[in-house]
């Protein structure tokens, strides 16, 4: 059966178009119920239970649920709970959800594709008996509501017919909708059972905690309460205002230090527009796209530079009078000189709310269900939520979603989503830092897992035919200990002409991840595997990352090989690429490989191969450094984790061996060779990686700091910098050169992915590696960029065909943006994880260690502790500090009486943990040596253990002390961003 859908649409040029589309109606769409005896179901269609047990105290008979669109949009948190099952979702709802929120659509899809949840999709829009046309003067919302009611009615009749004939228990359809009018129509006109989500969820008496997850929006008029905030403009008003140039659109950035301050980034302004005070902020939340009005110039002000924390004691009761904080803010702001464009927010164009991690604020009033939630991210305001399980949640990390922010409410209103786990618990804190760094870490959905090859995975004859057989060659892999996702393996052998053949073999991930599939989309969205100290969040499911793709020892695996012919001086004579089958002879650690190289008695193929590679790598490295590649440093540390408690028991700086450098050199060489190849074949579409040359101003702090030590550093080019860094050494301070390199690293910009056609050739330059062109090819298991590069290279050599999106410059540039964003976040998450573990390490101890002054600041010293790779601040002014320091800006020093601090000076500091702020524990640095009366603290001689038996199981720590350090991780993140 056929019907035509006719739309009237306006196109971009403002022309009105009449669009006609065919719309087929079918008779072969089934109801999916096990009790049905009418539809000729296939077994896999039978989703809904024959006799669904009722959990509701109101609706005791067996029933299926049907919902409208808003119920899914508002209450997805409730529907994600396993308690809710036997639900029919009609196509109308799915289409609308997809249109309104892609994030919620994805969550809904995950539920729908999980058969255990018993959610059935009924394609009512293409069913002959349930399709309806929009009537004249009917809004599309009303039409959709009617379509849902029509489907519900059809189901009710259909099921009645079945159960009557088969004499089975009757099944009721319950239509859940929060729209009173819709409910009335369902009950009165269609004689259906219908109720609000709240009523239904409250009737699930055995699952009272489900109520907390309800998103409750107040539709009641707000006029009876006194508004705290001015009203927002309507969409039309904002649109006109922006069009006429009176208002501006931009993204709102909240201040982390001061909750009454923020700024709006408007494209046409060079500076951010400053927004100060509660009314001017007018309910904007960090990340929202807002509409801002500029204040007259005489009202402009400047950033307050003060720290204001929202500490109100009784936020449950709204106060109208101007509060203390606002006063402080006004006073501090008016003192300053340099004014900055200032504005007020008049409307919200788009909310960018997400789910927030945090804790529940203890409430003095016992027994109330209204509570205040304090997010871990300081930029986010407190959120008002309702929960009946507060007592249980006080000691937990929880997630909350914001539902709305009405005018009369000081804080936004939200609902409890779920508890992550106890405060201070390692798992919980890992989860927090993943969420706060926007790292997608949910389990892979069934749809994604369906893309995996079935086991046992067998290499077919065809595969051998299509690939070069390298199984006989002595290939081995060299990785850190415990590595299960082995991306790369190597080999070398002597050629008859005296040259050396070197092969780099990379896991052939693009063989398994086909473009456009669910697994491909998921990997593209994740972009990278994220490594925490004790946890790995895979980009692709484990079957691939640790098994089928991983180039493990003594198993046959698919690889993408890059084979060179090199002469004795490591010059490339010829390069070729092909897909291959390999069988790695050994999966070695760096240490094992080093032992083999050093052991003169070993002379098998692997040993010879490794020795040759090692020699060549040395030449390659020397040549690279001569060209101006930088040897940079960042204080990297490793934790030794107690296998029982999972707590860090020892911290050590990572050790580097020759073999690390050996593997690195060949990976770099492969990446460069591949970059050249794909850029040559696809000059417009190659995905490359560049490291921009930092502006000279970035180096100023470095130049100043070094000048004091009597050195000059030449930063005019990478090569000069490299030479300078090599030459500046101090015999009395062996760590001096390392610090220099750490500082130099901080002056750099971030390396980024880009598409070759979007930049000019000179911009391709990779500053750190001094390479004119570079890409990522060698780690496709853990980086998505490498997968794209593999596909490009495969297309170059005819091993695979291209597809439209591979050569779509715009789409791939957007992809690069996502990859760059995720990489950055993964890096911050990794650092936050290190910080978290450092804090756990210091929880019950304090230690006096050697450190160095890294920077001298106006009111503080930045200290680096090499032993732990830690950096911290010693404040020189403020409350409780009696010593007077004199800051000398010219030579970057701080003086207190006869003691002077310069950059690079050695000091002794004591490290201990400050747990006063539950959500933001921080490591405290206190000066021990040199001793300054009234400032330094007395030495306690070496290590002092507060808790003498840290591993004793009887020692349970109090939850309040167990909190953690998202804060410091974030800080590290920000620092990098500014560069």
């Amino acid at each position, binding site marked *: 059966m*056929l019907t*035509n859908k006719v739309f009237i649409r306006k*196109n971009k040029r403002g*022309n009105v*178009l*009449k*669009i*006609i*589309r*065919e*719309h*087929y*109606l*079918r008779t072969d*769409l089934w109801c999916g119920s096990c009790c049905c005896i009418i539809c000729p179901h296939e077994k896999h269609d039978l989703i809904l239970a024959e006799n669904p047990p009722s959990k509701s105290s109101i609706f005791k008979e067996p029933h299926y649920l049907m919902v409208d669109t808003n119920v899914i949009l508002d209450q997805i948190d409730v529907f994600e709970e396993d308690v809710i099952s036997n639900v029919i979702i009609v196509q109308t709802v799915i289409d609308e959800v*997809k249109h309104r929120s*892609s994030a919620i659509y994805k969550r809904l*899809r995950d539920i*729908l*594709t999980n058969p255990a949840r018993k959610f059935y*999709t009924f*394609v009512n*829009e*293409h069913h002959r008996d349930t399709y309806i046309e929009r009537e004249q003067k009917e809004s599309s919302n009303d039409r959709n509501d009617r379509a849902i009611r029509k489907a519900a009615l059809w189901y009710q009749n259909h099921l009645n017919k079945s159960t009557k004939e088969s004499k089975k228990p009757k099944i009721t359809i319950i239509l859940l909708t929060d729209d009173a009018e819709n409910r009335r129509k369902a009950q009165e006109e269609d004689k259906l059972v219908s109720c609000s989500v709240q009523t239904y969820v409250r009737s699930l008496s055995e699952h009272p905690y489900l109520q907390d997850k309800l998103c409750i929006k107040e539709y009641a008029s707000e006029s009876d309460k006194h508004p705290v905030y001015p009203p927002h403009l309507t969409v039309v008003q904002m649109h006109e205002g922006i069009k006429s140039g009176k208002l501006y659109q931009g993204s709102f950035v909240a201040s982390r230090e001061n909750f009454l301050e923020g700024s709006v980034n408007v494209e046409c302004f060079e500076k951010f527009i400053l927004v100060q005070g509660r009314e001017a902020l007018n309910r904007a939340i960090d990340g929202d796209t807002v509409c801002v009005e500029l204040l007259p110039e005489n009202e402009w002000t400047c950033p307050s530079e003060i720290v204001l924390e929202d500490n109100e004691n009784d936020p449950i009761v709204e106060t109208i009078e101007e509060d203390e904080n606002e006063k402080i803010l006004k006073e501090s702001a008016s003192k300053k000189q340099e004014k900055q464009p200032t504005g007020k927010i008049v409307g919200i164009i788009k909310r960018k709310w997400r789910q927030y991690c945090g804790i529940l604020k203890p409430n003095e009033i016992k027994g109330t269900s209204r509570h205040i939630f304090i997010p871990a991210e300081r930029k986010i305001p407190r959120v008002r939520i309702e929960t009946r399980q507060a007592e249980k949640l006080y000691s937990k990390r929880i997630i909350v979603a914001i539902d709305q922010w009405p005018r009369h409410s000081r804080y936004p209103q939200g609902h409890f989503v779920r508890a992550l786990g106890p405060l201070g618990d390692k798992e919980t804190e890992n989860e927090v830092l993943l969420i706060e760094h926007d790292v997608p870490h949910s389990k892979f959905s069934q749809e994604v897992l369906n893309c995996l090859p079935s086991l046992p995975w067998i290499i077919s004859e065809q595969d051998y035919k299509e690939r070069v057989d390298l199984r006989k060659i002595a290939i081995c892999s060299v990785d850190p200990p415990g590595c299960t996702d082995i991306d790369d393996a190597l080999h070398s052998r002597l050629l008859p002409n005296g040259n050396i053949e070197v092969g780099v073999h990379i896991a052939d991930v693009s063989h398994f991840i*086909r*473009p*456009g*599939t*669910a697994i491909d989309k998921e990997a593209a969205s994740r972009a990278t595997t994220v490594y925490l100290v004790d946890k790995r969040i895979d980009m692709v499911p484990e079957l691939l990352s640790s098994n089928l793709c991983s180039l493990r020892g003594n198993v046959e695996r698919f690889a993408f090989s890059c084979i060179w012919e090199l002469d004795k001086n490591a010059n490339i004579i010829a390069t070729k690429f092909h897909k291959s089958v390999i069988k790695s002879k050994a999966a070695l650690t760096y240490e094992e490989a080093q032992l083999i190289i050093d052991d003169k008695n070993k002379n098998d193929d692997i040993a010879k191969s490794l020795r040759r590679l090692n020699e060549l790598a040395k030449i390659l490295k020397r040549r690279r450094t001569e060209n101006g590649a930088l040897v940079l440093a960042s204080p990297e540390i490793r934790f030794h984790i107690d296998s029982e408690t999972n707590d860090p028991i020892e911290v050590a700086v990572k050790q580097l061996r020759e073999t690390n450098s050996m593997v690195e050199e060949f990976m770099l060489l492969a990446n460069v060779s591949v970059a050249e190849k794909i850029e040559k074949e696809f000059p417009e579409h190659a995905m490359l990686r560049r490291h921009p040359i930092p502006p000279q101003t970035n180096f100023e702090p470095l130049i100043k700091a070094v000048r004091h030590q009597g050195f000059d550093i030449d930063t005019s080019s990478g090569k000069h910098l490299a030479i300078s860094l090599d030459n500046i050494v101090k015999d009395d301070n062996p760590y001096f050169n390392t610090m220099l390199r750490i500082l130099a690293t901080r002056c750099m910009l971030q390396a980024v992915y880009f598409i070759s056609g979007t930049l000019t050739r000179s911009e391709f330059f990779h500053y750190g590696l001094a390479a004119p062109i570079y890409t990522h090819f060698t780690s496709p298991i853990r980086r998505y960029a490498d997968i794209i590069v593999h596909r490009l290279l495969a297309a170059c050599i005819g091993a*695979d*065909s*291209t*597809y*439209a999106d591979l*050569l779509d410059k715009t789409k791939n540039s957007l992809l690069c943006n996502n990859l760059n964003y995720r990489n950055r976040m993964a890096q911050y998450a990794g650092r936050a994880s290190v910080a978290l573990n450092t804090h756990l390490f210091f929880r019950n101890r304090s230690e006096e260690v050697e450190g160095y002054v890294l920077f001298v600041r106006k009111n503080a010293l930045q200290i680096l502790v090499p032993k732990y790779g830690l950096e911290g601040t010693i404040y020189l002014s403020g409350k409780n500090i009696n010593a007077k320091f004199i800051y000398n800006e010219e030579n970057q020093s701080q003086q207190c009486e006869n003691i002077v601090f310069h950059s690079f000076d050695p000091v002794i500091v004591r490290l201990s943990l400050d747990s006063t702020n539950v959500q933001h524990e921080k490591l405290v640095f206190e000066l021990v040596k040199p001793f300054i009366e009234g400032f330094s603290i007395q030495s306690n001689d070496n290590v002092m253990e507060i808790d003498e038996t840290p591993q004793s199981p009887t020692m349970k720590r109090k939850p309040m002390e167990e909190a953690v350090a998202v804060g410091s991780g974030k800080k590290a993140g920000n620092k990098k961003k500014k560069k």
Partner: protein
Amino acid sequence: MAQELLSLQGLRIDGRRQNELRQIQCRLGVLERCDGSAYMLHGNTKVIASISGPKHPTKNSANKNRGGDEFIFNVRVKFATFSKNGERQKVVKNSKKLGEIEINLKNIFKSVILVEKYEKSQLDLNIEILQTDGSEICTVVNAATLALIDAGICMKEYICACTASLTNDGVALLDVSHLEEICGGPTLTIAALPRTGDHEQSVAYVELSQKFYLKDLNKIFDCALMGCEKIRGILDEAIRSNAFELVNSELTNN
């Protein structure tokens, strides 16, 4: 967000399954003043094809043909003014795209018309595309086949054309609508002689709108061929019922 070509429930945007054709309606002999004509509605693509000839070559054509004895076959294709989504088209005569379609049609049909029977004569095929909704070339080919048969031109076989596309998950989709075309899947258009020889189908024309993986080619090709065969059945049905009607009316007239 790009629309999915195939939903989780296995339905396409317009409600068809993966291997279903759109609705096809066709009639022969819709115009009286020409020697053969056909009307074809395929989905929402609407085409009228008309034939004039065989006849003596007009002077113009004869000149172009440099006085040879060959069969002269002219094809003209025209889009109606409001053929696309109600938006007024700029009427471009002899545009490159039209020219290409015309040449293709000419080659396709020259391969099946028994040319030796029509030496020294001229045949004009006029196509008017009244409304477009994807797979226009197919509808044009199918309509032309019907018109040629209506005009009684001798042909080796029916020529049927059909399109197929591919979802991101590698499922072949039969008969591509306009909406599916703009959603980004590759489109394969083929014109085939579904029943030449024993079982061999011979293909007269293939066109690909964009690149895709080679391994999928067979799948998508088979899908389109299956469509051609289905369409052949529909054309056959239309021709037979047309013949039946003609015979009936002859009988009643006598």
